[in-house]
């Protein structure tokens, strides 16, 4: 079972997957040529060139800004409205269909509308917020609906102050529901941001992709893709997985519960 593998074995199997993907990439390049799929070496040198001439840093910062602002706005509205909906049935019945409709609208449609309404960077931020907010809303609703009354009564019996109720009782419970939604929304915010930038010309990685496409420079296109994937993997390993491991310590898992 995967859970029983040692850290070293997991790293070896994981590396094997990446090597296989790179091998397929190289094979595709040999079969179809550099215009369809550039070689690994061409992509690496394009990436190095872009880093040296200062293209990657500002684009990365712009995309991070768009994605981060949009994610934060979507999360803030989603948590506030979702918590309210979880605590009050009338709010839940009112907002749930709205969230369902918003979730059903494709992100690309939001980009078009946002370009007409705002234009530029705010169009990207809005698109990210409106695409991620409903996800967080659903998780916050679920979290607030399932707040444990028994634990709250226990805390009241020990005269826990409001700060302890928030930090020790309600906060961790909500966090356990919100965490998966917030991490999914974070990954989504990068992808939506790149897509919106590509169409809006608001700067960022998407803008770089649009420029590479205009020049039919597939090596540069692949280099931008490598940048996006590298950022997502870095955030996943440095932040998401660490937080996940902390949560897994206390989450119920029948395989590790004492008898």
């Amino acid at each position, binding site marked *: 079972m995967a859970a029983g593998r040692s850290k070293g074995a997991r790293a070896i199997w994981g590396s094997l997957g990446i090597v296989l993907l790179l091998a397929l990439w190289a094979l595709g390049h040999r079969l179809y040529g550099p215009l369809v799929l550039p070689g690994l070496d061409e992509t690496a040198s394009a990436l190095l060139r872009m880093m040296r001439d200062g293209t990657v840093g500002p684009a990365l910062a712009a995309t991070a800004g768009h994605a981060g602002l949009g994610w934060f706005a979507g999360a803030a509205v989603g948590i506030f409205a979702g918590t309210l909906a979880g605590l009050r049935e009338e709010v839940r019945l009112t907002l749930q269909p709205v969230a369902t409709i918003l979730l059903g609208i494709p992100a690309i449609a939001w980009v078009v509308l946002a370009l007409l309404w705002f234009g530029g960077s705010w169009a990207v931020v809005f698109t990210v917020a409106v695409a991620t907010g409903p996800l967080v809303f659903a998780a916050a609703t679920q979290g607030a609906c399932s707040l444990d009354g028994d*634990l709250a009564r226990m805390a*009241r019996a*020990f005269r*826990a*102050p409001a700060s302890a109720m928030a930090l020790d009782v309600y906060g961790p419970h909500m966090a356990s529901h919100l965490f998966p939604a917030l991490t999914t929304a974070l990954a989504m915010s990068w992808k939506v941001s790149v897509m919106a930038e590509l169409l809006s010309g608001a700067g960022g990685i998407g803008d770089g992709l649009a420029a590479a496409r205009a020049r039919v420079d597939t090596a540069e296109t692949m280099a931008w893709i490598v940048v996006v994937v590298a950022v997502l993997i870095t955030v996943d390993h440095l932040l998401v997985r660490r937080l996940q491991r902390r949560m897994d*310590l*206390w*989450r*119920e898992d029948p395989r590790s519960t004492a008898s």
Partner: protein
Amino acid sequence: MTAPALAFERVHFSYGADPILDGIDLEVLAGHVTALMGPSGCGKSTLLAIGAGLLEPASGRVLRTGRRTAIVFQDPRLLPWRTALANVAFALKADRLASAERRDRAMAALASVGLRGDDVRKYPRQLSGGMRQRVALARALVIEPDLLLLDEPFGALDRPLARQMQSLARDHVDRRRAAALVVTHDPREAADIAEHVAVLSPAPARVTSQRALPGHVASRTEAERAAAAGALTGDAERSPGADP
């Protein structure tokens, strides 16, 4: 005369249209343990929750003279996202102590219930049922309560451990001249720990009998305990509507 730390006077309580308590009169004396017996679902836990101030009676009065009340629930109700140590320290948050002092006192309370070393850093899901219940008892004792409310707290423990936990609760009552109200189904447990025993009828509950057991529990002989348990079994069986 010993003053009551907790007194219920003609307490009535209902869940919606279902009457649960029907005029409960009961005194829990300081320095004494009072056992509360009665059939399942008769309202013993509800009475304890009213005693803890978690529920308000529909009518009647609840008098508490103690400053600090602690409760051990039937289910340990530990915070799943906090370690055993943090769960016990949580009870001290109302006192606004420095975190180091909270930690030290929680550590001592856990040691008193037999949890040491790595166990104090474990999360509730990593502890056995008996260990969780011991953490819940440590959480109650750490605040040095004047009134201790115990809702079948030793049911998940094996007999020797249950005896050890009973004696910890008992020591606390003697040392601080605290009062304790203990819900139990077991006449033998009542005879081992309590000076007074009240038996409730099925819901809507009334107190059908109150009995003072002979002497202090520490000086009670094995024969006296057995005799008291036998008498309590008789009281429970004579309670109107008692389980056959």
